[in-house]
């Protein structure tokens, strides 16, 4: 009963610390307009709009999708607003894909955004109170536990930080463009949340991302190759409970196995050509490689160390530069999906992985408790 769905258009803003030249509708429309153009469509061609973003307090607008609906051409159409913390951009793509797979709509626009320069994410994460620890403070203990558990050397985190920033130099949309990044610079950057250095952390960005998801007819009519959505999954678990493994959350394991099963993947490392993983702090690259059973226990950091996750490596991770180079929180998860889709469409530009046919997009959120994952393919499975 489930019909095929494909990403047929992708758009994103030029991400920056502050897009002071744009209003919030302007930011979202820059991404959405590019996605429509990529798909060869115009606003009236869209049947429904799904909007995702992280907490409303980041911009101080309650349910901002209400004032954004008509900016995104949704008047007279169904509109949904998804909020699953940091994973929301990924969840938004999945909700939109369900609208197509279910046969309800033929062409759906999904938009995710955050304009962090209008407020302060640290303030928001602290619930508006003093003494906030930021996402880094929340995740640092898990990172430390991973380091102890896996016996990974501390330079692994520096390596990821350098790799993703070098990849970002090949991505004109990426916020950070750090041409002079080096292991030494990462190591010498201030310690923000021990063991996380400043340069091992994501920036705070203004940005939006949009994708058009279409059915078979829509995919056939699009000017550029589609990325078929061959598997999607979401998994959530409570934020804290006695016995929870926050280093390798079960929800992340289950979510990964669900998409592998749907896509017929038995050896993810061999069968997936490229992955865009939500890595806001450098250590999350090896943590997710292990947490999603791409690498065995204690083996994820060795993939980093051997260069396997480099753009030219056997299993490239975040060729776009990832969250470490652009973090507009609500958009970040969708950017993973959009970049993964563009890889199998052959539309990733300078950071294209040669011959990519199968890609993985992943987003996580909350206290590493919400997961959204999808597998894209250049061919219908």
């Amino acid at each position, binding site marked *: 009963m489930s019909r095929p769905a494909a990403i047929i258009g992708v758009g994103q803003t030029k991400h920056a610390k*502050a*897009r*002071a*030249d*744009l*209003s*919030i*509708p*302007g930011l979202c*429309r820059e991404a959405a*307009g590019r996605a429509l153009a990529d798909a060869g469509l115009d*606003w*009236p061609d869209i049947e429904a709009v799904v909007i995702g973003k992280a907490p409303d*307090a980041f*911009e*101080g607008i309650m349910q901002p999708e209400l004032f954004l609906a*008509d*900016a*995104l*051409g*949704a*008047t*007279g159409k169904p509109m949904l607003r998804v909020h699953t913390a940091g994973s929301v951009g990924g969840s938004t793509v999945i909700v939109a894909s369900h609208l197509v797979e279910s046969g309800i709509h033929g062409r759906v626009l999904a938009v995710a955004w955050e304009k962090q*320069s*209008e*407020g*302060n994410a640290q*303030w928001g994460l602290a*619930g*508006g*109170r003093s003494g906030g620890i930021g996402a880094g403070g929340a995740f640092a203990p898990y990172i430390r536990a991973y380091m102890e558990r896996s016996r990974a050397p501390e330079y692994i985190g520096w390596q990821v930080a350098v790799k993703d920033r070098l990849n970002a130099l090949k991505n004109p949309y990426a916020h950070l463009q750090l041409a002079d990044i080096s292991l030494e610079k990462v190591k010498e950057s201030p310690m923000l949340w021990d063991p996380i250095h400043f340069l091992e952390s994501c920036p705070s960005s203004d940005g939006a991302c949009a994708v058009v998801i279409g059915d078979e007819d829509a995919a056939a009519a699009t000017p550029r190759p589609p990325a078929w959505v061959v598997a999607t999954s979401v998994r959530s678990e409570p934020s804290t409970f006695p016995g929870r493994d926050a280093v390798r959350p079960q929800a992340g394991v289950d979510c990964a196995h669900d998409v592998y099963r749907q896509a017929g993947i038995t050896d993810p490392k061999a069968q997936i050509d490229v992955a865009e993983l939500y890595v806001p702090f450098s250590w999350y690259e090896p943590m997710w490689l292990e947490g999603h059973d791409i690498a065995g226990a204690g083996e994820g950091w060795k993939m980093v160390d051997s260069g396997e996750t480099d753009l030219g490596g056997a299993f490239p991770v975040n060729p776009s530069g990832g969250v470490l180079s652009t973090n507009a929180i609500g958009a970040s998860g969708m950017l993973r999906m959009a970049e993964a889709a563009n890889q199998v469409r052959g539309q990733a530009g300078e950071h294209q992985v040669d011959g990519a046919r199968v890609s993985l997009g992943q987003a996580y959120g909350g206290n590493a408790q919400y997961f959204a994952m999808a597998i894209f393919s250049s061919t219908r499975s």
Partner: protein
Amino acid sequence: MLTGVTSSTGVANLIYRPTVPDSQTVTTTLEFPYRRSLGPVVGGFMRALGEHRILGVRTPAGEVLVPPLEYDPRTGAALEELVDVGPGGVVGSWAWVAAPTRRHPLDHPFAFALITLDGASTALVHAVDVAGEGAMRAGMRVVPRWRDEPQGRITDIEAFVPETGGQG
């Protein structure tokens, strides 16, 4: 059998507590000075207020939307042609606010109104400052009363007031 409103079938530990006295309360304030970038259309509108001008935006169909948006809200099409409207206009629907809140633009009773400015195809929501609700009626003509020191906000119009000179 589906019966009952709040089903408690098989649930032993429903511990719903109704309203209780205010013995244990906690008060928190969520406060932040947001700083918004406005873009060309909203920004143009706000800047014009400082010159005591009100702008709308023209659609391809020839309508003039006030307040101006970067897009046609019915189609999503991009809009950018700003044009002067008003500053006078006509009140449509209105609501009398007998007791203003902390957030309202005036600290004494006033009306919120939908005001169609001269040359506009849509209505602007703003405050109308009159002595009492008896002075309000649909079709009345109003003009803006400008704030002395513009702040680049919609409240640079303090309120609309009845047009003097016997019009309407």
